[in-house]
Structures are given as C-alpha cells and as structure tokens.
C-alpha cells in the first residue's frame, strides 16, 4: 500500500460517479426525444458499477483496497409513456406518440446521490493529501 493506491481508489470512485452524472444528465436531456439512431423513442441508460481489487504495483498481489469501474452501460427497456397527440409527426395510426421511459424525478434523485458520493470521494482525496503531508513533515 502506498499513497498512490489510495489516490487511485478515490480517483476511480470520482470518475465512476462522474460517469453516473453524465448518464443521468443524458437521460434528462432526452426526456422528450422521440427519434434515435436505433429508431423509436430514447431509452434511458443506467451505469453498472463493478468493484475492482487494487494491486501492489511491484508484485501484482491484491492489497485489500477496492476501486470501482463502470463495467457496462445498460439500456433500460421498460416501456415508456404513450401520449395522445395526433398532430405529432411521430404519432402512430391511433394518434399516440411513444415517449422515452425517463422519469425526471428519478434522474434528479440519481444526480443528487451521485453528487454526494462524488463529494465523499473528493473528501477522501483531501484526507490522503493531508496524511501524505504529515508523513513528509516527519523529521523536518
């Protein structure tokens, strides 16, 4: 274990939470999108996190600390809302428009949770920086 392992762990947490924020904001931005490259309305995305064992740099043995990574971005296939709007260019013959399965409240809660988790990781980085400084101050 060295100082950089702890920094890498917190760094992986920061980037995973940032990815989560990016995905939640994509979902929010596309809450009303009816056209996509794949056809049909936008389908909300969900990051899948996976714990990764950190290794001792020289020997490659696991050193007990666990980082995190986004192993996959899953597509949520639950059906979206259907709104009656016969004038819409993407309305079906019955006059219904298929809208994305994005629930803005869900996404905003997700955003807040990601932002708090990001803060927690940032605070761990501050702590390790203080510790490193204290270590360097020995025998000064």
């Amino acid at each position, binding site marked *: *274990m*060295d*100082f950089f*392992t*702890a920094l890498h*762990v*917190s760094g*992986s*947490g920061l980037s*995973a*939470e940032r990815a*989560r924020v990016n995905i939640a904001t994509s979902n929010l931005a596309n809450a009303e999108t009816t056209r996509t490259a794949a056809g049909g309305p936008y389908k909300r995305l969900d990051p*899948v*996190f*996976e*714990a990764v064992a*950190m290794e*001792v740099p020289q020997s490659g043995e696991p*050193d*007990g*600390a*666990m*980082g*995190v990574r986004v192993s996959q971005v899953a597509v949520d296939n639950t059906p979206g809302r259907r709104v009656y709007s016969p004038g819409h260019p993407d309305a079906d013959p019955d006059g219904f428009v298929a809208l994305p399965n994005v629930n803005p409240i869900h996404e905003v809660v997700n955003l807040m*949770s*990601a932002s*708090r*988790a990001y803060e*927690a*990781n940032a*605070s*761990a980085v501050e*702590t*390790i920086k*203080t*510790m490193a400084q*204290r*270590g360097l*101050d*020995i*025998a*000064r």
Partner: protein
Amino acid sequence: MRIFDETLTRVERSLDVRLQRHGVLAGNLANIDTPGYKQRDVDFVAAMGAALDGQGVSRTDARHFDAEGGALAVGVGGTTAGDAAPARVIEVGGSTPSLDGNGVDLDQTMAALAENGLQYGANARAASKKLGILRYVASDGNG
C-alpha cells in the same frame, strides 16, 4: 536505558497500517453504489498485535550480540517492521444493506476516514518528536 527502543518501530508500523486502512476506506466510498459490495475495514488491533509480537531478534549463536542489551541488536530488530505484510482486510457489518445488496454506511466510513487521518497525523508527530529527542541527544543538548 536504550536510545533506539521500539518506539519508532511501533510508530512506523502504525503509520503503515493507517495508510493501508485509508486505502480500504476510500475503496468503500468508491464502491458506495456498487451492487452487492460489502463494507470493508482493516483489523487494526490485530495488525498492530501481529507486528509487535513479531518484533525483536533472538540469538541463534552464542557469539551474537545480546538482543536485550545492545542498541545495535535492537536497531536490527526494528527494521522488520518495514517488511511487515499488509494487514488483514475484513468485511464489517455496516448499515442494513440497501435493495441492491450494498452495505456501505457513508457516515460510518466518513467518520472512520477522519479518525484514521487524525491518528495518522498523531503518529507522524510522535515519530517527529522521537527523532527530535534523538537529534537533541546527538548534538549534546545543543540541537
């Protein structure tokens, strides 16, 4: 009275274990949204106990220095702390797991992280003081 006693050995080991503990606690924070992840911690007491039990040297030859008496022998024993294996990491019961099976308790982890950092600072200061005493002695009290 020995100058090079076990103080530095203990402090050194404690700094090592605190650093490792920080990595493990930071890992809990990094995995706060990972499904099925269980909160982990370092068994600090066991790690210190193992390090302190294993310290010191034993005489394997009658011509060796006496481990109890000589500063040299104790100094040699003190270097073992640097090579000590990483402390054992255990899964600890945090809060009730959430629906995705994640057991990380944010408050507990943040508190442990802060405590760990403060203890690290205290240990670093202890090492500093010990070295300061040695410096004072080595300079005939003029340091």
